[in-house]
């Protein structure tokens, strides 16, 4: 070793692992943090669990997802024959009549995959659910660790393909937002409270999608010479500014998409009348 010190003989201390490895400072506690290090992973896990519970209920429900002119973002585009008819809406019967389950399941796989492989959400659930690590300098409980070097976690490398799919889904949700400028009789030039909900949601969805690390790489990050590609350099700078807020946008868009769906549920189920602004 650089300083000429050698590890202690194997019998000097009972063999341990991690911070208790032989030759490291003999400190019994797995960590010595005195702050509330557990709070952030606990809140993260609670927030994600709440969304998983809500979205599972709504995705499998297969009902109350369309109230003209609003369609729930969980069900758009609607790819099965059993979709509710939506005038000029995002119906595309790609899967025909054989699909008997909720049509949401056909499309949610893409935004779900995008968020599951997202670099921010990976941090969130590796810390919050898998405790790998639970917090910085807090020992993780696992005996072995191979990270993302092998199956299944090596599949995280497909993130950019989910990004491409997420662009298409965001495009459809933008179309849905435009359709929300109609009233319940499909007359154009109207706006309700739901239109505002949809506008906020689509703005956050786009901001989150374009702040993606893969997006930042694709638009310019992969280049070696920015000076030869001024347009891509500018795009990379914009993506970088958004990327600095990727975590906040991830949470904001997660909440907004759930709220947009819940709003449609309330209107479609008759629990709430959409106030018309004009």
């Amino acid at each position, binding site marked *: *070793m*650089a*300083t000429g*010190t050698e*590890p*202690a003989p194997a019998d*000097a*201390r009972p063999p341990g*692992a*991690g*911070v208790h*490895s032989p*030759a*490291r*400072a*003999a*400190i019994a506690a797995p*960590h*010595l*943090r*005195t*702050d509330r290090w557990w709070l952030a992973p606990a809140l993260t896990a609670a927030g994600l669990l709440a969304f998983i519970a809500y979205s599972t209920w709504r995705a499998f429900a297969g009902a109350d997802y369309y109230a003209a002119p609003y369609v729930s973002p969980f069900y758009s585009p609607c790819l099965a024959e059993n979709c509710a008819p939506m005038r000029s809406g995002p119906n595309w019967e790609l899967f025909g009549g054989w699909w008997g389950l909720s049509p949401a399941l056909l499309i949610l796989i893409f935004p779900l995959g995008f968020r599951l492989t997202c*670099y921010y959400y*990976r*941090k969130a659930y*590796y*810390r919050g659910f898998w405790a*790998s*690590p639970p917090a*910085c*300098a*807090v*020992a993780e409980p696992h005996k*072995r*660790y*191979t*990270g*993302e*070097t*092998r199956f299944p*976690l*090596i599949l995280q*490398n*497909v*993130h*950019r393909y989910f990004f491409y799919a997420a662009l298409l889904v965001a495009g459809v949700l933008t179309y849905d937002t435009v359709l929300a400028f109609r009233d319940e009789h499909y007359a154009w030039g109207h706006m309700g409270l739901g239109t505002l909900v949809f506008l906020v949601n689509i703005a956050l969805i786009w901001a989150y999608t374009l702040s993606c*690390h*893969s997006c*930042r*790489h694709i638009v310019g*990050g*992969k280049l*070696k*010479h*920015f*000076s*030869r*590609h001024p347009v891509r*350099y500018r795009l990379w700078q914009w993506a970088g500014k958004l990327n600095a807020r*990727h975590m906040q946008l991830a949470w904001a868009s997660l909440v907004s998409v759930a709220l947009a769906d819940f709003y449609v549920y309330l209107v479609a189920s008759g629990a709430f009348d959409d106030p018309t602004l004009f």
Partner: protein
Amino acid sequence: MSGYEARFRVWRGDQGGGALEDFAVEVNEGEVVLDIIHRLQATQAPDLAVRWNCKAGKCGSCSAEINGRPRLMCMTRMSVFTREETVTVTPLRAFPVVRDLVTDVGFNYAKAREVPAFVPPAGVGPGEYRMTQEDVDRSQEFRKCIECFLCQDTCHVVRDHEENKPAFAGPRFLMRVAELDMHPLDAAAGTGLDRARAAQDEHGLGYCNITKCCTEVCPEGIRITDNALIPLKERAVDRKYDPLVWLGSKIRRRRES
């Protein structure tokens, strides 16, 4: 703020064993943890071993763990602690201890040697290098690194798994690979060295699960994960896992971008 007496717990020992020892020590306004450690040396524990140099957050020598968090002792103000709080100072817990607060960081020098150096471009002599600012901005952020090795210490890949040390270079040296791969004049590709592929195959980039502890502890504020490790992962995807990029490289030979 007037002076007060603080409670300190400092790890004393070597590879044969050791323990946290309690001290009561004077603290004055404006002092940092390293000041208190020096006062302990001067007044109560003259044989306390501590590595330090600049006392200005630029040499990266006085890395330690303060209340369990990897930090520079010279950049940790005493004013961040309450007067009632016991301040615990231990050596870095990812590396072999030498004595007291001094650890053997030789692992990092071994990893540094494994990263192939900058390859000068052909036909460009010393003093003839010309680069535009936008081409070197990214690398310059990484050059702020003072090699305190706090990121290496906090990274759970090696901190919690000693067995991963041979395979994993750690955030500091993956950042070095990223820096060279983004360097506008690095001619490694011309010698057959694919740095992004090597990052994955030889320096253990796949072990990184981007939990950002390296970024959290960096005293220079380098966004290691967002600006070095994730871009390097994306470059590795280009080389190894993206069939469209592979197909594109076969269909048309691109000039260097």
